[in-house]
């Protein structure tokens, strides 16, 4: 069994390396990915892209060598070395440039996470196992198609599961499906305070009183069809409360009313009701 597992490893590592090289060499976003990576920190802005491309070339070459016969121990050794070096680089990136992107299997900006490190570790182990292989992967898979296929599928699934870049492809659709089936956010009802404040701020009453206001919303309460919103204000040197009455259910900023009430005496100093018709010609636009 260990023979089959070992023999399949070059295939796994080769596929992952070629996938990784594809992003670095063929992606139109390779330059952006290189600029977001920790290579900028490690080598400088100008050398990041050439180094990124060079790494892609090395990965492509090694991946192709691993996939194509003959199977040489040196290839497995080189793959292990590359995976270990990559593990070191990711650990460095996580410490030295935590906001940098991995740039590993996708040009999508993905910070280096524990999963990226685990994936690099998995590849290093796979490379190490490949050193034990006695024959090529085509013969092993042909000899034990079920076992070989199962090992291949499980390992590639593990690589995909450990790749935050690929979440978009499988994890988010699964989570979307779960949300669609369970509706976890349903149940909100009532008129939020923000809707009242938005309506209030569109009103003529607010526009006229706004320069008096000193505070944000201090209190609000509902009474019948109205929601009352109180602000602290200052009017002619007195501490006052500006209380707005806003229609609760309907969106009619023109009906918003305001009173300015003296805090000390309870006297109403000012009362504005509704909108005054705008003076001058008015263009009426009817929705088509």
């Amino acid at each position, binding site marked *: 069994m260990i023979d089959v597992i070992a023999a399949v490893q070059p295939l796994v590592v080769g596929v992952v390396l070629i996938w990784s090289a594809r992003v670095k060499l063929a992606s139109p976003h390779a330059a952006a990915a290189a600029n977001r990576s920790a290579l900028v920190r490690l080598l400088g802005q100008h050398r990041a892209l050439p180094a990124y491309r060079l790494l892609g070339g090395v990965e492509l070459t090694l991946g192709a060598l691993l996939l194509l016969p003959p199977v040489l121990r040196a290839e497995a050794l080189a793959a292990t070395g590359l995976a270990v070096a990559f593990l070191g680089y990711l650990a460095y990136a996580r410490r030295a440039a935590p906001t940098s992107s991995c740039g590993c299997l996708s040009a999508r900006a993905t910070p280096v996470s524990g999963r990226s490190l685990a994936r690099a570790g998995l590849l290093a182990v796979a490379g190490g196992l490949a050193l034990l292989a006695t024959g090529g992967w085509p013969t092993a898979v042909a000899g034990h198609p079920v076992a070989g296929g199962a090992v291949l599928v499980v390992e590639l699934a593990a690589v995909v599961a450990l790749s935050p870049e690929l979440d978009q492809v499988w994890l988010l659709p699964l989570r979307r499906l779960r949300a669609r089936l369970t509706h976890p956010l349903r149940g*909100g009802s009532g008129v939020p305070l*923000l809707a009242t404040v938005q309506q209030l701020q569109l009103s003529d009453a607010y526009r006229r*009183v706004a320069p008096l206001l000193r505070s944000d919303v201090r209190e609000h309460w509902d009474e019948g069809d109205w929601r*009352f919103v109180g602000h602290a204000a200052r009017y002619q040197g007195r501490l006052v409360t500006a209380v707005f009455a806003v229609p609760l259910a309907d969106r009619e900023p023109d009906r918003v009313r305001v009173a300015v009430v003296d805090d000390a005496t309870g006297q*109403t*100093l000012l009362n504005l009701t509704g909108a005054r018709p705008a003076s001058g010609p008015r263009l009426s636009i009817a929705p088509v």
Partner: protein
Amino acid sequence: MNQTLDRRRLLATAALGGVVGATGLGSLAPEAAFAAEPATIEPGAPDPNFAEGRISRISGSMLLVTGSDTVLHSIRITDGTSIWKLHPTTFDKVTVGDGLYARGVRLPDGTLAADSVWLNIVNLHGHIAAVGRNVLHLDHQGRRIVAHVVPDRSAAVYNGTPAVSDLSLLRVGRHVQVLGAWHPDTNEIDIATVYAAA
């Protein structure tokens, strides 16, 4: 309690057409009375009427606040101060350790008489990574933020339309902007408003 009710009755009556009793105050034309005060802040200088930081001590109606630049502020809460902590609330909800933004008037002794105080307010962008029962998991610059939906408080603004209470149009994978109240020293927030495309 009764006092609050009486006060609210008075204010409601005034707003819905109470009698204006102060005719001796001169012109009541708002435009005449509301001339804006001239701005006195030097361009580029820190605004003296603003303070931010975390509350290190509460003594009476004074908040002692350590700014993120380690400047110490004394902030006085007055009867007219609005206090926001996910929603408009009262002074007894203020606790040591809360983050704070305050705006008011700087007094000659250096204290800030606050007009408005916002506690633990955060404004952040992120992607919805997952949705649970009344909770959003947000990806915010590679970090995970747990954003709780607070029934009857949280609101959603879809495509810039008026706010609604229904958050069920939020989709996993979409970009959102969230205004909310941070739970101090955690990666969790309560959602005040979430802005999204639908």
